[in-house]
């Protein structure tokens, strides 16, 4: 080993160390932000290490510099722009898009490495061509699935794509098996030297990614994204075999494994198994035929004014935010309402269900954005025993996460999912636009209970009216 080798080696070791610390730190609230910066720094370090290594050995041709600068400028600029502009409500889609682009990057570099081999002059006694070919093929396969799957996931989350009914037929498994087998065949051809089958591999694995992701219900999308994130780690590790870089392999393997664990943790939180997420199809379409179509018999609806009067008289209020709040972008208006209540000496806490919204932890992000103090956010297990001692619960655009069926009705598809026991409180106001169901498509027994009143309307609109009413009552004006 000569000097540039040693320097690069030390830099790579350091980068892996920092990345490991970063991933570890990201899983703890206290250290998450620093950990993210640390990981970003490690990535920068690894680039510097690579560039200086080539500068110190073979040199980097001017032409390469041009393409490096163009590629990185365009990518970074667009990425930064999106990251700064995107509203917090669209986080799930954004993460899916980023992830898809990561997969695309692996896919492209693998195609490039296959069509224009650049690794031959590497080192004597280095990788045998066979292993090189296998790594490239894995990179292509996993990269294409990651890309197409993520893009489908993004489109569904954005609402650009719904879950077409025909994707729910059992035959879809057959079609996917055909795609899978085709990919496998193309894979085998490719590693036995048949270069042209590369396109077959690209197409078949892209279709496989689409075919697997399309039937999955939007409710399960975050799990899918997390899984695809794990795949993109695997693709990176495979690319590491192609370019002979331990750093890539370790980083890719760490992301792949960590993603798998995270996926598992999420599945647990949503009371679903990974298998049923991937192959069970969409939850809603399974169930519209069964309990989903029950009729409501005993709905009490009330005006915003009544709601304000009840709130004024309360000592303790719990707010249950849900997906509807996110859609209505009403988090800031909500914050104004709760500020008023607090100024009147009313105790307000927020009950955060782990899968409220469209992504685990989504509600925390949204409420944090609206400056809600961290200590007012309570997790489900902490807040559930507090409902009986609560005067008013405001259910804001939440539905499935407050459905008592999950506890009482063994025949319900929701049965077993942990929910917030809002019905234990004295009075429950449910603010939503109409009687339509939540993500699961299931009737909500809560709405029929005598202590529940519906306040119909868009969450943001209702909340602004509520501010007006509270002002009229003189709440929060001392």
């Amino acid at each position, binding site marked *: 080993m000569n000097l540039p080798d040693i320097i690069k080696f030390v830099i790579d070791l350091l980068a892996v160390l920092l*990345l490991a610390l970063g*991933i*570890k730190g990201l*899983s703890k*609230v206290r250290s*998450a*932000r620093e950990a*993210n910066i640390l*990981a970003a720094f490690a*990535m920068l370090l*690894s*680039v510097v290490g*690579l560039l200086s290594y080539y500068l110190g050995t073979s040199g980097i041709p001017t*032409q*390469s510099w041009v393409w490096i600068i163009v*590629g990185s400028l365009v990518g970074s600029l*667009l*990425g*930064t722009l*999106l*990251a*700064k502009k995107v509203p*917090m409500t669209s*986080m799930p889609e954004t*993460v899916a898009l*980023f*992830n898809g*682009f*990561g997969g695309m*990057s692996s896919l*492209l*570099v693998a195609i*490039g*490495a296959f069509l*224009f081999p*650049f690794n031959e*002059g590497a080192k004597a006694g280095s990788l045998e061509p066979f*292993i090189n070919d296998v790594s490239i093929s894995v990179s292509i396969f996993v990269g294409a699935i990651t890309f197409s799957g993520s893009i489908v996931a993004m489109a569904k989350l954005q609402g650009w794509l719904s879950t077409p009914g025909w994707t729910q037929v059992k035959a879809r498994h057959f079609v996917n098996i055909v795609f899978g087998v085709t990919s496998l065949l193309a894979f085998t051809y490719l590693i036995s030297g048949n270069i042209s089958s590369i396109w077959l591999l690209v197409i078949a694995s892209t279709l496989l990614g689409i075919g697997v992701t399309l039937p999955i219900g939007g409710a399960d999308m975050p799990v899918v994204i997390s899984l695809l994130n794990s795949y993109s*780690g695997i693709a990176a590790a495979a690319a590491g075999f192609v*370019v*002979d*870089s331990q750093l890539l392999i*370790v*980083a890719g*393997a*760490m*992301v*792949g*494994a*960590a*993603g798998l*664990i*995270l996926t598992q943790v999420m599945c647990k*939180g949503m009371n679903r198994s990974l298998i049923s997420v991937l192959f069970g199809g969409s939850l809603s379409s399974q169930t519209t035929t069964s309990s989903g179509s029950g009729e409501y018999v005993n709905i009490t609806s009330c005006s915003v004014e009544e709601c304000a009067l009840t709130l004024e008289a309360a000592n303790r209020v719990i707010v249950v935010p849900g997906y509807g709040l996110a859609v209505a972008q009403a988090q800031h208006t909500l914050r104004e309402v709760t500020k008023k209540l607090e100024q009147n000496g009313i105790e307000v806490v927020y009950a955060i269900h782990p899968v409220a919204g469209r*992504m685990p*932890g989504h509600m925390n*992000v949204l409420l944090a954005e609206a400056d809600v*103090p*961290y*200590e007012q956010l309570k997790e489900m297990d902490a807040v559930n025993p507090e409902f009986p001692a609560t005067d008013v619960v405001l259910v804001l655009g939440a539905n499935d996460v407050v459905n008592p069926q999950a506890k009482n009705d063994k025949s319900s598809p929701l049965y077993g999912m942990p929910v917030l026991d809002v019905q234990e409180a004295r009075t429950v106001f449910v603010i939503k636009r109409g009687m339509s169901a939540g993500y699961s498509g299931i009737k909500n027994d809560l709405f029929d209970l005598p202590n529940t009143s519906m306040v119909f309307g868009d969450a943001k609109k209702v909340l602004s009216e509520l501010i007006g009413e509270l002002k009229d009552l003189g709440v929060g004006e001392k």
Partner: protein
Amino acid sequence: MNFDSLLWVLLLGSLLGLELIGKVPPTLHTPLMSGANAISGITMLAALTAIIKAEPNSPLLIIGSISLGFALFNVVGGFFVTDRMLAMFSRKPTKKNK
């Protein structure tokens, strides 16, 4: 590098990844996902290598450059967006545990 030493590295890296993430509070699921996502853009190193090693005027230059662009979109955007989310949590760092 021999192939088997690369495999060792793969095994140990995976085991490490499995161990690194312990009990993640649901609050952090989203940022953790997007942070890990950004790290997976480490493929940018492969893209860089491709561009540097490409023959003059080879189409590999363009492919590599596009790949680099996608990767950096992922990396830079991912870290920024994660930071944006985490910044919101840490606004009131003093009262984290009540």
